[in-house]
Structures are given as C-alpha cells and as structure tokens.
C-alpha cells in the first residue's frame, strides 16, 4: 500500500504527535508499505530528517489549544501540499490532528479519495476545536475513517465535532526499551525512586513526588530520587528540604537511549501526574522497560495499568499515599518482580507492531468500499472543487 502521512506540527521540535507519526511511519515501512510523511520543518539544514519525510514549509509559532504550536499555513504551503498529493500516487491519505490550522487541514481540503484522520487532542473545553468545528466542516466531512488515540480523545471529538471514531491507542516501541540496562551507579544500595517528565509542568506532578520523598527520606537514609526531564531544575527542586537536596539527582533532558535506561535505573518508577493525560506515553515506556511502577489513579493510567495489576495505583495528588505505596514496594522485591513481569505482559497490547496492524485494518476497511458508484481510478487525487453538474444531478449518487 502507498500511504501518505501528514503531521501538522514542526518535525524538528519534539512532541507527542510528531513521535507518533514517526513511529507509525517506521512500523508501516517495516510491514512492507510505502510511506511518505509531510510535515513542516523549521531548520531543514540542522535536523536529521528520515528519507520518507517531505518538508511542507517553514513553521510559525501560533498559540493553539492552550500552548504554542509550531504550524505551517498559507498559499505557499498549500501549493506544496497539493503537489505532494498529486505526485504521491497514494492509496490512502492519513492526516493527524486535522482541526489544527496547519498542513493536515490543507491536505483535507486539497485531497479527494480515501482519507483517514487521527485525533490526539483530549481537552473537554477545547475552545479551538469547538469554534473551528463548524468552519472546518468542509474539510472534516471528507474523512472516511476517524481514529482516536484514547477514550478521552474520542469523547472530545464526539462532543466538539460530532460523529464517531474507533479507538486505537498510541504505540510504544517495546523493542527499544525491553533490553535497557540501568545507568551506572543506579539503582544503588539504599533504594531509589524514579521520575521522568517536564520538571516545570505542574500537571506532571513532580511536586507530589518531592513531597512524598520528603516523607520517606528520614526513615530511609540511603534512599535517592532520580529526576529526568527538561525544565528549570532550580525552580522545580526549590521545595526540597536542604538536608535532602543532594539525594535528589536531576539528570536533565536525556537522549532516547539514556531515557530507556533511566526507566530501569530506579527500584520504583513513579508517575504522579495530576490529570490532563489522555494516554501516558511515559507510563507505557516504563512498562516496556520492565519497571515496577507506582502511578496516580487517573482514568488513563488506571486503564493502561489494568486497574492496578500491572503497576500500583495511588490516590492522585496525595503525597502520603504515594509515600506509603512506594515504601511498601521498596520493601518487597518479590512484588516488584511480579509487577515488572505483569507490566511487560500488559504493554504488548501497545506495541507499535500491534497498533500499526490495527491502523492497517482501518485503511483496509476504508478502501474496501471504494469504487462503489463512480467508476474512477481508486486512490487519492486532487479535489477538483465545486462542480456545477452537482446541481443538475442532485441526489443521484
């Protein structure tokens, strides 16, 4: 199959959607499909681009959906999108986040033919989505099959745009994580806790974990806390009592290989997020690496951890509960081993190989009915725009 993937956000800036599109492209290629990815690229010179990536133009920072997204829009980008579609000869076009005012939306307008879209946003009060859903209907009504990456994303779509979507979760490249070794010097003799995520993003819940650490540390003199992730570490760790400061070890932003090792470096990996997570890619990566996990009991995490079977759950936002459960796990290596094995088992459902097979099933479903009615060549072509004949043959499909 020839598949065209469209990513609305700048490829050279790390982000969940970019990662999803990149991993999906790799998994599809591995299954023997031909893939081309269209995305905005800021610094084409410096970033290392995969072979299948086609730059769609320079992105500009735009406030969108509560943060600043780097998007690409305008007549020049539109021309590139049209050229990519007309020269691509795709069997199916798969756009991501079509409501974002960027190349995905332009691709929906420009294309005619089998069209699949994945919705990532889960924001019950997304003003951007609510306001744009009417205006963008001429684009979104062309989509033959919609995918949502989580139940929360599906609900957001149903409420703001209408219609329905099938649920296919984010994937995790299990193979990249399952054989990682701990970083040198970890987990250490006195036991250790781990955290991975942006330090200065309150919803990631680092503050809850630091409070829990302060509760546990006096009774456990050897206990250390590994903190990996970008952000201002001085501000984030300011609340740690002076005596404990040197037992909290910030590692900063890690590359992919070290990230995989960081999950394995602590005896207990903590995911103290307060909410707003639609899926929790950090959690599935930790599961793939075989970490023993304590996570907050928000619905997304509870679902991924199978209600507590594949990792312990604590009451979200409650440092005392986190301290108690993490402490119990530190004292019970047997249970840590059992949770680690259960996590490795549970994460197989999120392996990119499984997930990409489901996405291909969606492509096949969308393609199955093609060729009904009109005798045109199957596949994606350029939209020819409004036709006056549509007025004459109203209703006869």
């Amino acid at each position: 199959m020839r598949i065209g993937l469209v990513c609305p956000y700048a490829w050279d800036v790390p982000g969940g959607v970019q990662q999803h599109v990149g991993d999906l492209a790799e998994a599809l290629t591995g299954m023997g499909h031909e893939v081309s990815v269209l995305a905005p690229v800021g610094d084409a010179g410096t970033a290392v681009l995969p072979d299948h990536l086609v730059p769609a133009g320079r992105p500009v920072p735009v406030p969108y959906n509560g943060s600043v997204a780097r998007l690409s829009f305008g007549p020049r980008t539109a021309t590139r999108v049209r050229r990519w579609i007309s020269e691509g000869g795709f069997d199916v076009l798969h756009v991501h986040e079509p409501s974002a005012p960027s190349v995905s939306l332009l691709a929906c307008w420009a294309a005619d033919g089998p069209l699949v879209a994945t919705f990532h946003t889960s924001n019950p009060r997304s003003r951007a989505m609510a306001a744009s859903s009417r205006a963008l209907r001429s684009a979104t009504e062309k989509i033959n099959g919609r995918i949502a990456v989580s139940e929360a994303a599906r609900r957001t779509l149903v409420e703001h745009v209408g219609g329905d979507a099938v649920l296919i979760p984010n994937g995790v490249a299990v193979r990249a994580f399952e054989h990682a070794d701990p970083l040198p010097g970890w987990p250490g003799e006195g036991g250790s806790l781990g955290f991975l995520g942006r330090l200065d993003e309150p919803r990631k819940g680092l503050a809850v974990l630091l409070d829990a650490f302060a509760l546990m540390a006096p009774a456990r003199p050897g206990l250390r806390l590994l903190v990996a992730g970008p952000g201002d570490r001085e501000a984030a760790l300011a609340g740690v009592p002076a005596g404990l400061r040197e037992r909290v070890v910030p590692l900063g932003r890690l590359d992919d290989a070290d990230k995989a090792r960081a999950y394995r470096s602590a005896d207990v990996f903590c995911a103290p997020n307060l909410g707003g997570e639609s899926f929790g890619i950090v959690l599935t990566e930790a599961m793939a690496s075989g970490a023993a996990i304590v996570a907050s009991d928000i619905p997304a995490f509870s679902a991924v951890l199978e209600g507590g079977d594949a990792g312990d759950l604590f009451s979200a936002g409650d440092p005392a509960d986190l301290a108690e459960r993490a402490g119990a796990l530190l004292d019970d290596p047997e249970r840590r081993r059992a949770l680690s094995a259960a996590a490795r088992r549970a994460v197989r459902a999120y392996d990119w190989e499984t997930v990409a097979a489901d996405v291909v099933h969606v492509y096949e479903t969308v393609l199955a009915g093609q060729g009904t009615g009109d005798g045109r060549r199957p596949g994606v072509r350029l939209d020819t725009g409004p036709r006056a004949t549509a007025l004459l043959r109203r209703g006869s499909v």
Partner: protein
Amino acid sequence: MVAWAVLALALFGFYLSWRATRLHRLHHRVDVARAGLEGALARRRSAVLALAGAGCVPRAGARALEEAVAAAGEAGERRLDLAESRLSRVLRDVVEEAGPGGAASAPPVRAEVEAAAKGVHIARTFYNDAVSDTRRARRSRIVRVFRLAGTAPLPDYFEIDDRPPRTAPPAARPDTL
C-alpha cells in the same frame, strides 16, 4: 446595477454548486461506507462458518454459530441488525467459553474470526460516522430550501451489538520474565 446583480447571482450560483458538491460527496461517502460494512459482515459470516467447521469448538457451539450465520444471511434489510447482533452474542459465548488457550488451540481460523469481528466494529463506526455527517448536512436550511439532496434517501444508522469476543492477552516471552 445590473452588473452587480449578475455578479451576486453568479457568486450565489457558485456557492450553491459548492454546497451541492459537498452533499454529493457525503452521499457517496455513505455508499462507500455501506459497501465496506456489508463486506465486513460477509467476511465475519464466512470466518465464523470456517471456525464452526474446523472442529476446535464444542459441537453444540458450532451448531449455534452455523444457525446464527444462516439467520443473518437470510435476514432482510429490516431485521439485519437483530440477526447480526445475535451472531455477535453467540460468537462471544462460544469463543470465550472455549478459553484463551495457547498457540495449539488458536489456529488461523480463530485469528481470522477475531480480525473479522474487529473489522465489523470498525466498518460500522465509519458508516455511522458518515450517516451522522450526512444527516447533519441535510438539516441545513439552504439544503432544504433549494432541495440540494434531490431524491437521495436519508441514510439510516446501523445500530448493532458488535463487541468482538475478548481476546487473551498475548503471552509474555519467557526471556522477558
């Protein structure tokens, strides 16, 4: 003055043809989705028949499956939803009762049934999604006043119980334990 009126009329005509083209495409999308749904239902029926004939489910279960498939095949358009829902239920009962099992008791026929059952759910979601977009478009005033939908029938939702049988979680490889 006349020139302005002609221009306005031309613009309005262009707008009307744009709306008519969009509606035409929606009707086409419903037809395509319907064909996909019927294909998915047919695939599930033949997969279930293959499972019933493969001898890996108890005899009573196999007979119940064959009866449910026959009923779905004979059901007219008006009773199709009930018959296909019943097939989903029977399939769940039989497959989940047979137990997850390992590779030996999960031959390709069973994998095909699970894939086909998933396919029905996907195809039905996309069909109902197309119906919902089309029905909303046909509620709009300009479509009704200018009769842009012409003689095309208003598409109906296809509501069935299509929950696939629960599949066993893939077994962990021994070396990861």
